[in-house]
């Protein structure tokens, strides 16, 4: 197999020029669900993003934003019959959209793998954890049973499962939630994938366990040069773990930026509203929160206007623009793109502070 990643972690945080070439390149991805006798549903619409080795791209959005469908499309896990995928997904130059299922299956688990939110429903409840780990190894590397078992034990130890030899014989229900998620991560890492897609990997876990799992992922990415696509709704997790952030709303990317840019100078009114609405541990107390009105379901179709307009305090007639594109306002740092006709732009003087 080709060597994994191989990009030293010290490229992180370097200038735009010094960054490694992207491992995962998604261009203009679209997913439409079609059902006989029903209007097609456009779940993902023109999504582009790239993930570099040794870096984490955070994909943020609420329910219905299309973030999970995007991740499933990248992995080629959408049902072929009903989901119509357009655009391009390239993994190290290889086009995945339209690839034969058999070839795609050979890549999954080997070159790219996925960690799901709920470990109980993604682990097989009637098969011991050890068998589920060795299965991946034996399928993709042709290891013997004994080799695979030793390797599996080593993997479980590395993800922080105590007494791994005994744990290999356990069934998923015998493990705690945190242990199960670790086992799932061990399975995902078994073949040293170059791309790891994690869909809400810590949402089902308690905060202290979440901190353990996030630390594990952080170390993994930094030390092995794995490229990671992290799907989450938790802005705190994004702030701590991601290098870049892409914010989705109603199937489209509304903002994308380096981590510090996004949190320092959120430009899209949705991002801005989201950050303002969460109570902060270090913020002032005693004032009412400032929620975004309405719900994520109150959207307009992008073909008519900005989908966020019905909830946006800044919306006016100009927002009824079907051709609204992602653009990079000069007031923002390089690579900071926003899809909004009335973005929140930092005052000229404040720009310096935000872009460091």
């Amino acid at each position, binding site marked *: 197999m080709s*060597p*994994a990643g*191989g990009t030293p972690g010290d490229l992180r945080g370097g200038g735009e020029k010094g960054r490694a070439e992207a491992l995962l390149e998604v261009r203009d991805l679209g997913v439409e669900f079609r059902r006989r006798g029903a209007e097609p549903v456009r779940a993902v619409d023109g999504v582009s993003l790239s993930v570099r080795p040794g870096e984490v791209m955070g994909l943020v959005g*609420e*329910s219905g934003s299309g973030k999970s469908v995007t991740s499933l499309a990248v992995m080629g896990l959408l049902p072929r019959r009903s989901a119509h995928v357009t655009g391009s997904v390239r993994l190290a130059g290889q086009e995945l959209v339209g690839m034969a299922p058999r070839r795609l299956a050979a890549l999954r688990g080997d070159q790219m793998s996925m960690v799901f939110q709920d470990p109980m429903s993604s682990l097989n409840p009637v098969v011991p954890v050890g068998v589920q780990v060795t299965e991946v190894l034996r399928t993709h590397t042709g290891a013997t049973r004994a080799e695979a078992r030793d390797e599996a034990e080593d993997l479980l130890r*590395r*993800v*922080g499962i*105590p007494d791994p030899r005994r744990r290999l014989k356990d069934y998923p229900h015998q493990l*705690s939630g*945190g*242990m199960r998620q670790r086992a799932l991560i061990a399975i995902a*890492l078994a073949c*040293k*994938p170059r791309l790891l897609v994690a869909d809400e990997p810590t949402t089902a876990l*308690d*905060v*202290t*366990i*979440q*901190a*353990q799992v996030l*630390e*594990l992922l952080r*170390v*993994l990415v930094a*030390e*092995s040069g*794995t490229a990671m696509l992290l799907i989450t*709704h*938790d*802005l*705190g*997790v*994004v*702030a*701590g773990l991601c290098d870049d952030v892409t914010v989705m709303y109603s199937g489209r990317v509304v903002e994308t930026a380096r*981590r*510090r840019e996004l*949190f*320092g100078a959120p430009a899209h009114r949705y991002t801005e*509203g*989201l*950050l303002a*609405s*969460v*109570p*902060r*541990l*270090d913020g002032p*107390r005693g004032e*009412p*929160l*400032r*929620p*975004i*009105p309405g*719900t*994520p379901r109150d959207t307009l179709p992008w073909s008519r206007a900005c989908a966020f307009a019905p*909830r946006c305090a800044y919306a006016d007639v100009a927002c009824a623009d079907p051709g609204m594109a992602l653009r990079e306002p000069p007031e923002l740092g390089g690579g900071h793109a926003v899809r909004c006709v009335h973005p929140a732009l930092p005052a000229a003087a404040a720009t310096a502070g935000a872009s460091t």
Partner: protein
Amino acid sequence: MSGVGAKDRDDVESRSEMGTGDDVLLRVRGLEVHFPLKKGLLLDRTVGHVRAVDGVDLDLRRGQTYGLVGESGCGKSTLGRALLRLEEPTAGTVELDGQDVLALRPAALRSLRRRMQMVFQDPMSSLDPRQSVESLLTEPLRAHDVPGGPQAWRARVLELLEVVGLPASAAARYPHEFSGGQRQRIGIARAVALSPDLVVADEPVSALDVSVQAQVVNLLEELQERLGLTYLVIAHDLAVVRHISDVVGVMYLGVVVEQAPSDELYSRPLHPYTLALMSAIPVPDPAAEDARERILLTGDLPSPADPPPGCRFHTRCPFRQETRCSDEVPRARELAPGHTVACHWAEDVRDGRITPRADASDPTATREVATGS
């Protein structure tokens, strides 16, 4: 900033002075909820007990919000349910306005439930999908035979919808027609329908989208002001709890390990578990995230059927000492006005005389994880 601090200190003082006064709505002492562990088909032997709640003292003051935080399995939900006798406590006392809740017979308990209501986490499973909103909101009025009959009830339903910010047209609709946030509003309307004194809210916003959570938090605060409610808010999200609560209690494995006025607890946490919990919460601020030092805990929550001896947290505590921790149960001690902590070494931890043990760091932090080729 300093002005705010001064005001808070006044609050703390006035509260602790009133400590034993009449302003306590709900007084809980030594509350225990133990679930028997059964084994065997015929004989049904009890082989042990899950000590979900194991000796908790609480005072809920009128018009205030008590926030209860802790991780899953710490007993916080069981505690909330036990206060309303949705679970039967096995020991201890619960007094609402001096009336012993645990001694009440079923009929008396029913009428007392008018004064104590609950808001559940998932409004989809706590609202009957086959009942219209009007029927859902009329049910408590009918059950407690609120005077006035159907006509007054109908007026009350419309009033309730207005109070929680739903249109009158919602009355004829069914739960599935609403979004999560709106459903939670219906759940809240149902809870306040009988003008209760106490509302226990178990994870009221954690099932909601981030942008909607703030709406429901604001609604709860508005209602508190408008209706003079007393809240017990149970949640795992410390930021939400800090925002909404006047007093916060931290639970671990069935006991309250620390309790303090909200600002005091968050600015000066004393118990090692609280410290770890606070340091584990991701903050949406990259600078703060990069700068912070995490106290990572080892392992998982021990089984509440077999809690560790001594301090229950000692098996995971990074500040654990050779003496006392593993063999002496720490009593709750008041180290600042209204700020109690159950840790033998709280002062030493606070003043930096004890530092976290190096070997307590997480095993996942081993330096060679996964795919290094």
